[in-house]
């Protein structure tokens, strides 16, 4: 079929055959030597004892707050393991264990199956053995062949500050998750791994590096002798210092008390998050012992959703703070003179429409310029002015401030929210079911299809406080400062908006007057009252302030709390004064 006849030479064929024969002979003779001539030696070696590599462990790194307060540490517990092939009578032995530990036989069997690593390797079936239990196991040692207790470090959480949301927790590895993990870390079933929060994010840093110890064991796997050669020591994990300030975190959490909501405080210059409260929460203590499936279920089904970290995974309409997006557009693009005043009569009727849109103040704000419109959060002013802006430009500006993107916080499971654009409206309402002018009336108030996370809102206020050159938000105090993409608005644009934010809190008639400080500290901010389909509006306060030459920002959100001015502002005010006192205290020390 092809061009050339096979011209292989019988000599070459024989050469290769010889090489083959020769190589296989070498291999076989070596096998013969090992298995037949030297059999006695290896047979006794395999029977009497053998060297086994045993993993050794070191403690996981601690988690501290910025001032060195220990948030998460380790404490030793005892666990019970079972080696399947050594069991004499599994059912009756499990019954004994069940009597001693009070764990049901079904539960023991479930764990036995779940963490099984093979007939010859120990499987964990009980944790947190008390000394009473250990001594009982020791007493009935003869009945319990195949069972063994050993030390196992677990996490111990700070009594007061054990917020599950950013700290996260550890989980035992089961066999199903093993194939998806970094193989270089040598994970084994039954070991603990960071499963949420910073425990997950900084798993590599916190995790110890496993060591190896060589021991001689007999055919039953019993340890005979330690060989102190070639051992590789285990090293403890590195500590993680968070940017969180425990006192501030604690104070903020107490302020929210039984309200659902979020409080975030950050250092604008570094991006450090000083406080991250998401309420309601749950205590990490549930990971300490044996948590029954029922407890878990009620936690998962709780309609207040305590397991969700609202700061990064809660989605809310932002409300009036988005009026600033319109304001930035107007001033930066020179669409109107900020000094020009419009008349607010309490309602607005778009040209050629019969619908009337109301201002929150029924008898109107009278003559309103940009400053007053921001300070008093006048709807009519923004209804009228947003008509000068195209939808695409408006959504673009919102995205410039990081909405619809992750903030890149060092936590897993962050959501990006939603900034609706033209495509979204076409997909949702059909080609003719909406109009650009109409949706903008909603968007400019931060309502209708916009969803943001509180952390995005914090990033937004940081952009304004730092005039566009903004450090990325982070929880790890030692992480190097990175920056978001610069927002290049003119100095005048930033100043106009910041002036408005000043008036919100500090000038009579401003919507955030309840946050005004008695001290010298000047708070800038914006209140929002975000209507939503789930009941009362969400109350927001986003703001920033300068203290001792540094700039700090905060976001307060009370879910279904009511008005931003009435509910969120006082909380913000209290936080800032507490922070001020704290700072003075620190300075005096």
């Amino acid at each position, binding site marked *: 079929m092809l061009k050339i*006849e096979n011209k*292989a*030479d019988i000599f070459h064929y024989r050469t290769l055959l010889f090489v083959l024969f020769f190589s296989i002979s070498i*291999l*076989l003779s070596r*096998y013969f030597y090992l*298995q037949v001539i030297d059999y006695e030696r290896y*047979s006794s070696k395999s029977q009497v004892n*053998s060297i086994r590599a045993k993993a050794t462990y070191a403690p996981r790194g601690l988690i501290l707050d910025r001032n060195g307060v220990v948030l998460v540490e380790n404490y030793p517990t005892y666990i019970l393991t079972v080696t399947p092939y050594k069991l004499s009578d599994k059912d009756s032995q499990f019954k004994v264990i069940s009597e001693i530990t009070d764990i049901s036989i079904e539960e023991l069997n479930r764990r036995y199956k779940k963490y099984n690593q093979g007939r010859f390797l120990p499987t964990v079936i009980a944790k947190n053995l008390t000394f009473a239990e250990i001594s009982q196991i020791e007493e009935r040692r003869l009945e319990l062949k195949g069972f063994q207790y050993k030390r196992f470090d677990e996490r111990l959480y700070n009594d007061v500050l054990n917020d599950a949301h950013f700290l996260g927790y550890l989980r035992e590895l089961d066999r199903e998750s093993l194939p998806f993990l970094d193989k270089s870390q040598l994970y084994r079933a039954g070991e603990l791994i960071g499963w949420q929060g910073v425990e997950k994010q900084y798993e590599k840093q916190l995790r110890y590096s496993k060591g*190896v110890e060589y021991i001689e064991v007999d055919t039953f796997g019993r340890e005979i002798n330690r060989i102190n050669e070639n051992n590789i020591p285990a090293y403890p994990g590195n500590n993680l210092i968070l940017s969180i300030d425990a006192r501030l975190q604690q104070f903020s959490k107490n302020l929210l008390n039984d309200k659902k909501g979020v409080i975030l405080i950050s250092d604008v210059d570094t991006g450090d998050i000083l406080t991250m409260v998401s309420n309601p929460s749950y205590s990490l203590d549930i990971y300490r012992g044996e948590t029954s499936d029922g407890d878990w279920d009620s936690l998962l089904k709780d309609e207040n959703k305590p397991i969700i970290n609202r700061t990064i995974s809660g989605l809310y309409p932002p409300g009036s703070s988005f009026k600033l997006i319109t304001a930035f557009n107007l001033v930066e693009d020179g669409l109107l003179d900020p000094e020009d005043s419009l008349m607010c009569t309490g309602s607005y009727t778009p040209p050629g429409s019969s619908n009337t849109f109301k201002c929150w103040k029924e008898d109107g704000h009278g003559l309103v310029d940009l400053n007053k419109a921001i300070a008093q959060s006048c709807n009519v002013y923004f209804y009228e002015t947003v008509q000068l802006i195209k939808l695409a430009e408006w959504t673009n500006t919102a995205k410039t401030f990081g909405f619809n993107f992750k903030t890149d916080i060092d936590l897993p499971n962050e959501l990006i929210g939603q900034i609706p654009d033209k495509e979204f409206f076409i997909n949702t309402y059909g080609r003719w079911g909406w109009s650009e002018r109409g949706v903008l009336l909603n968007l400019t108030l931060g309502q209708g299809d916009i969803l943001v996370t509180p952390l995005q809102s914090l990033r937004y206020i940081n952009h304004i406080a730092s005039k566009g050159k903004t450090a990325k938000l982070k929880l790890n105090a030692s992480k190097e400062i990175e920056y978001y993409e610069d927002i290049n608005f003119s100095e005048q644009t930033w100043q106009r908006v910041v002036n408005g934010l000043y008036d919100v809190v500090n000038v009579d008639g401003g919507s955030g007057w309840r946050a005004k400080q008695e001290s010298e500290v000047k708070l800038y901010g914006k209140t929002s009252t975000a209507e939503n389909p789930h009941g009362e509006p969400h109350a927001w306060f986003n703001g920033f302030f300068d203290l001792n030459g540094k700039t700090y920002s905060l976001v307060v959100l009370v879910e279904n709390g009511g008005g931003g001015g009435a509910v969120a502002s006082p909380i913000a005010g209290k936080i800032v004064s507490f922070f001020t006192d704290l700072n003075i205290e620190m300075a005096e020390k």
Partner: protein
Amino acid sequence: MNPFNSFLYGSNEYIGRLYLIISSLIAFGLLTLYSISSEPLSLSSSFSRQIIFILFSLLIFFLIGRINIKTIHDNSTLIYIFSFLLCLIPFFLSPVENTYRWIDFGLFYIQPGEYLKCASIILIAKYLSNHQLEVKEGYVVIIPIIIALMSSLLVLNQPDLGTAVIIFAPVLPMLLWAGVNTFNLFLLIAPVITIIAAANNIIFNIWALIMFLIFLTFQGNFIKKITIYFANIFTGLLFPFFWNDFLNGYQRQRFLDFLNPDLDPMGSSYHIIQSITAIGSGGLFGKGWGQGSQTQLKFLPVQESDFILSVIAEEFGFFGISIIMILFFMLIKTLLDIAFKCSDYFSSLVIVGLTSILFSHIFVNSAMTIGLMPVKGLPTPFVSAGGSFMLLCFIILALVTNLSKN
């Protein structure tokens, strides 16, 4: 004969024998995997996974069986370039276990380096089967070596020393098969042996003597021979000096780490010791299926792939390992028979190349388990667990079946 049968058995009796041998090897492998899986019937066990891999590979086997050899011959350059580019893809993906060897498809990994081996062989075969080529001329060796070197360097950067070495394995047999001057072939391998021999003084002296005799035997320009001979001797003399004195300990370690990135943190000598103990304690007839204490107590590492022969040796003894070795011998011999009897030269050369790959895997892997070679993660054909390599073996089988039809 109906078309299905003619596809299966080809036009000669060797193909039938080939399938019989391979089926036995696969059966032996599965038997062993069953014995070391704690729950062989669960989907995550290496036993069930192996069955799935085999079924999938069979599918690919039948697909490749449909490709015309002429298409392969005419597009060999294209096939090579394609495989080469495929090997570049992992460099743009995130590393898997700190190397750039794999492309992650979610459910399974593909190691494109495996396919570059085949592609290099096909390209070299096409070059050597060209009827205008004067095979007796010395320059003929240059192009095949460049092809192998290119592939090898790429794979070395992934880094994957095992595959990089295996890519070179077919070059020598193929050149020999094509009738290249034997002395030229000797010149090719001499420096490599020199460097290795330099590790030991006595071996080096013996090697110098052998080399001297060979140089005497072959005809050729006297001055040229003398120059090459002494170049070899000097390389051998200088290498230990370079290694010991020129590089400091840290650099040597870096170099060794680069060559052997999958060095187990528990130490590779530990592997060898455990493997040899397992093999030796197997004795003449082994400890019985599922009864190997070294295997079952997990003393033996990576037993389902790299050290599967040690498991066989422990559980089935010298008797079992002899059967495996005889099967391997017959496998390679049958392949050489097919290559020899093949009517077409290109096909014949490709089969020799593919056979060399299978053989080098067999040899390196077996030699490793008995401590004759350093630990390298190379699986045994048709016996070891592992999807990517099993697929390669079936692709080789499909190509051989196809090529033998002439």
